[in-house]
């Protein structure tokens, strides 16, 4: 190696030290960054912009005669929840004669692509636009652009860092986490050791759910480890296998952000020959199937559910607004709670794991979408 330990190395070292110093400085800034929220609700965390304001769409001049072209900027189709959410929207739009065209774009998890998608929808001249922001801050300018272009602008699925839209429908992810965390605290009697399975590192939803859960867990509970597992069964199970080995006999509970991870965590305990510890879940059918089937064995859980039909709710608000009605500017969607008592109402034993139970789609439509075996025709189709 013909490398000279000259000025070059000195420069490198100096640069490296300066980077370290800067990263420390950046961390300070991060801690300040979280201060912009206020706690309006002991369980929730709502943007401070939140008001009871109404939007008078007629006065805003965005109302127009049908038939309409409605654009949807969807952030991602990365899991069955998001696919079902879009499927519900398509089903609802298909039944509405006033909707001429529904243009759905998919940013494939890429904020920059979503900005470009929204630009395209505005340029295409849609009458209303439904946006699931991939980033509250990053998408805000695009939301403003749509709003300023005189397009009915409806945001749902996440909040957005602006007030220039006609309506927002939003389910508090902090609250989602808080519910699971508080339930777990109750199960453990306020103390014990847990591990946390998070969604995807770097995603706002994932971070908020964890923060909410930690708030809900309270002081007495010791968090042994946190690991992102992408709401994915295989990743969740693999992480749990490691934790079971790393903390033998010490894990009293698991906080899982839901998706298929909860089921993966339970299966890891079962595979190790252990009884599952308390794990909260979500309205993911795979988890519900295990839960409902093991209720009699004493298994208990809780499932705050992010509704897949919020897209339909957003579409309804958009239609109201296009018709010139006055709509609520801010709507918080409650997480319907799945409990030991009502889990049987949600579970679909005849359907695959990917189904999301909290749906406005008819059981038949779900059967068709997921090819369930529940109805007569479907079973026949399968056997043919």
């Amino acid at each position, binding site marked *: 190696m013909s490398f000279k330990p000259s000025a070059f190395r000195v420069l490198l070292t100096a640069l490296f030290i300066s980077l370290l110093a800067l990263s420390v400085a950046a961390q300070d800034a991060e801690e300040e960054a979280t201060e912009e929220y206020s706690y309006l609700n002991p369980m929730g965390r709502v943007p401070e912009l939140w008001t009871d304001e109404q939007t008078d769409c007629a006065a805003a001049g965005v109302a127009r005669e049908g038939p309409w072209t409605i654009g949807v900027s969807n952030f991602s189709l990365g*899991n069955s929840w998001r696919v079902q959410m879009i*499927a519900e929207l398509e089903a609802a739009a298909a039944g509405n004669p006033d909707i001429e065209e529904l243009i759905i774009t998919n940013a494939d998890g890429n904020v920059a692509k979503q900005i470009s998608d929204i630009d395209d929808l505005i340029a295409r001249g849609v009458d209303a636009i439904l946006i699931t922001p991939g980033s509250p801050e990053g998408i805000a300018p695009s939301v403003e652009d749509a709003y300023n272009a005189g397009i009915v602008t409806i945001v749902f699925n996440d909040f957005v860092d602006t007030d220039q839209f006609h309506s927002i429908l939003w389910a508090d992810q902090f609250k989602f986490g808080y519910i699971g965390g508080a339930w777990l605290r109750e199960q453990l009697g306020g103390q014990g050791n847990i591990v946390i399975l998070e969604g995807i590192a770097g995603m706002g939803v994932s971070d908020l759910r964890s923060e909410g859960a930690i708030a809900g867990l309270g002081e007495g509970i010791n968090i*042994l480890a946190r690991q992102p597992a992408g709401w994915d*069964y295989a990743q969740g199970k693999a992480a749990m*296998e490691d934790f*079971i*080995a790393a903390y033998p006999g010490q894990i009293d509970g698991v906080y899982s952000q839901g998706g298929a991870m909860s089921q993966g965590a339970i299966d890891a305990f079962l595979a190790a020959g252990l009884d599952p510890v308390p794990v909260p879940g979500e309205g993911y059918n795979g988890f519900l199937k295990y839960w409902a089937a093991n209720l009699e064995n004493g298994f208990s859980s809780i499932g705050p559910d992010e509704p897949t039909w919020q897209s339909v709710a957003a579409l309804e608000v958009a239609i109201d607004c296009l018709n010139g009605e006055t709509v609520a500017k801010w709507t918080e969607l409650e997480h319907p709670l799945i409990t030991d008592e009502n889990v049987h109402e949600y579970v679909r034993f005849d359907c*695959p794991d*990917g189904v999301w139970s909290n749906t406005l789609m008819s059981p038949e439509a779900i059967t068709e*979408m997921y090819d369930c075996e529940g109805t007569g025709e479907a079973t026949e189709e399968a056997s043919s």
Partner: protein
Amino acid sequence: MTAKSVQSSARRALLQLSLPPAAIIWIAVGLLLLLARSVSASFWELSHLLNVARQASALGILAIGQTYVLITGGIDLSNAMVVTLVNVVAATLLRGSDETLGGTLLICLGIGLLTGLANGLLITRLKVPPLVVTLGMFSILRGAAYVYTDGAPRGDISPALEFVGTGFVGPIPTAVIFWVVLTALAAVALQKTVFGRQLYAVGGNEKASRLSGVPADRVIVLAYVVSGLMAAIAGLILSGYAGTGTLTLGDGRNLDSIAAAVVGGTSLSGGSGSVIGSAGGALFLALLFSFLRFIGLPYTIQLMVQGLILAVAVYLHVRSQRAS
């Protein structure tokens, strides 16, 4: 002068110790195990080690195919999406029962085979660089998985496949048995068959191989077919592990399989490599991921350490190759 001669004789001594690349990674696996043991004795629990081995098995099987392709001087980025496509197809066709198992297996292996065939033909006939072909194929397969399922994976994996993914034969996880058997077969094919010899020759010098009568195109196509088939098998095993169809099952596994092969001593410039080394590479990565989770490092630090160790592993290989 004396200091220099001491240094050079020390270097000579080191050079004489130089080991085959495949051995280095197995030594690294051993060192990692010792390190893990010193941190926590429970890492050495047999059940945990077997779990790690099972986690490694799908990656190891993917790495077999990747190794074949890398030996030709190519690369396969599409294998990750073969895993996903096989997963959703298997779940849809099986619908949770073993009745259609035979046909499903054939179709899934067919997907792997056809993908490999398409990759290989595009690379050899149209001379499109392997990175581009397999990247494009990745996108096409992804679209196919979405179109096939309409975005909503249907059906369920059957008991027989679940046994492959999660079951045990005696104390050994079934998946590990598949991995070991496939690795052994692939190693024998590489070292002891005409095809294996031709694979190394084509990767080392394609032109000279053609001029020696080696059907280079056919050999390259076959390497991609092997990679496609291995991806299909890994997809079936992972399906058994996940129990259901998901559109994310293959995510990131292409780069992981390349990393496993490369830290196992396979060169990205073609002509050298071994499946035994790649098996060590897969095990090393699985152990590393597990160990970092095991000691409860924050995820962000885990990523930094992963990056560092990957760089060090590659550095060690380069050193050892330069020495020999």
